[in-house]
């Protein structure tokens, strides 16, 4: 269980989070949505242990502030929004960087399996810098997956915190990545993912956190949050949620476009 209690955080002198209390359960995918500058990334960085915060964050009973970097790394993997790489590493070498603090006994085949999962089999010998942006994003995801390969270790769940992991991907690979996350959650791991694409969030998430101006505006099922009235208020534009028959079939269209043009 990941719990945040009255979380406050600042970037430089600007207060970004103004007291967020929420919790995520392992085995479920939580999508964090909200307009630009609402504090989604800062929230993810806070639970990743990257930024100083006031309040309390607990990861499966342990206070985040008490965990050493290597203890954190054994419990959660993080995919930042913009991943960089300084030197000409090959794809295999990048994925192996994720194994720095890995707890797997048998890791010899892990690089290949992590690459297969993101549809990059056969790319292990290529130079990372020579790949396309979308391929690089998938290599970084494979690295993070390799770090927390088993979703549950010794009865304790592990977590994936991802900031916009599919922004650079084509639609087929977006769905492929979502399947990877679904399997991870179904096997008992926890997933918190920042998403801009509301329809993708509606499709994949079990729970949605709607962030606005550093506050949690709404939380709950996609049908409730993305179908709810708070969404249009948060984004500041008319949004109409539509429902198709069947489960998880909420979708939205930017109706405001026509209103403005007309």
């Amino acid at each position, binding site marked *: 269980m990941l719990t945040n209690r009255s979380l406050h955080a600042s970037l430089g002198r600007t207060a970004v989070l103004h007291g967020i209390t929420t919790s995520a359960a392992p085995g479920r995918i939580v999508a964090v949505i909200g307009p630009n500058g609402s504090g989604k990334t800062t929230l993810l960085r806070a639970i990743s242990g990257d930024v100083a915060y006031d309040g309390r964050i607990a990861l499966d009973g342990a206070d985040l502030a008490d965990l050493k*970097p290597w203890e954190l790394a054994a419990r959660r993997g*993080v995919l*930042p929004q913009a*991943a*960089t790489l300084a030197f000409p590493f090959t*794809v*295999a070498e990048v994925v192996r960087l994720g194994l720095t603090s890995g707890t797997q006994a048998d890791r010899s085949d892990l690089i290949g399996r992590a690459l297969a999962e993101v549809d990059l089999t056969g790319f*292990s010998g290529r130079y990372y810098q020579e790949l396309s942006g979308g391929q690089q994003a998938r290599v970084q995801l494979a690295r993070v997956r390799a770090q927390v390969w088993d979703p549950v270790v010794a009865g304790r769940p592990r977590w994936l915190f991802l900031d916009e992991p599919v922004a650079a991907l084509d639609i087929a690979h977006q769905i492929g990545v979502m399947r990877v996350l679904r399997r991870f959650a179904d096997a008992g791991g926890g997933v918190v993912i920042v998403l801009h694409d509301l329809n993708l969030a509606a499709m994949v998430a079990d729970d949605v956190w709607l962030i606005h101006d550093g506050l949690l505006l709404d939380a709950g099922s996609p049908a409730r949050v993305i179908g709810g009235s708070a969404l249009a208020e948060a984004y500041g534009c008319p949004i109409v949620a539509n429902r198709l028959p069947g489960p998880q079939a909420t979708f939205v269209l930017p109706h405001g476009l026509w209103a403005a043009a007309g």
Partner: protein
Amino acid sequence: MVALADTPVLAGDRSIRARRVAFGLAGLLLLTSLLSLSHGASGVRLDLVLQSWLAGHDVPARDWLILWEIRLPRMLTGVLVGASLAVGGAVMQGLFRNPLADPGLVGVGAGAGLGAVLAIVLGGQAPAWVAAWLGWNMVPVAAFMGGWLSTMVLYRVSTRAGRTSTATMLLAGIALGALAGAATGILVYVADDRQLRDLTFWGLGSLGGASWPKIAAAGPVMLLALLAAPFLARGLNGLSLGEAAAHHIGLPVQRVKHVAILTVAAATGAAVAVSGGIGFIGIVVPHLLRLATGPDHRYLLVNAALLGATLLLLADLIARSIIAPAELPIGIVTAVIGAPVFLWILLRRRGLVDL
């Protein structure tokens, strides 16, 4: 343990090749060391001396003296300085996430030089307890402090939010180098005749002044840096993903950075204190190795030490044979080889870095 034949090597995994290269480089260093020992202006031949010694004959005292007091210290100094310069460069490049970060180019060498000159010129005015405590070590310790200060300033200036700007780093390095050079100039101006002679010998950038007391003073500092470097390997690997991701994969980022800065300062400072400014070893050696076996610091740092030592011994051999019996300053040899390589790196990376 699984037999190697059973586990096919994953394409892109260069660790086995890197380990083989390490063995090859170790052999090469051994050969070069022997070459360095057996070659000199006096014409004393190592093989003949050893032959007659093993056969039980008397070896002339002069020959022993040349081997033991001149060639062996020179060879050991070359090995230590070459390894330190290459490892200092590799660690600095890993810390700055930039293949152009060479201590000699970005002012760290100049800062260390200023420290050394300070110790030579003003060391006599140091309080008695400092002089007694440091003794012969005053020059290398002062050079270490100078290198450490300039590395810290450079890192603060050129790195924001865990990212280093190449342009800022190189420009800040020019400014730091100019500042240290100006301060050094003032010190040279106020130095007396004896100090000037010391400074001139030191500033030539040569292994010619190698001696046992110098090795005793600066050797431990260099050894410490060389022994610390392998422990930085995983940390520098992680830093190549950026500071945030390095933390995500479980590294104590601040500690890695501090140890890296101290290692760069110790390696560069002690090397500069012994042999003056010898450029380009720190940039050429890591770059060649990254091309050959990849940027994984677990192998890069060890291989850089071996190749750096070998290259410096070779440069020294060239420096003292090309216009024999006179000697060329070794810095000229390394610059002639190294500067074109630096330009080549710039050209290759022109599309990749926003200079």
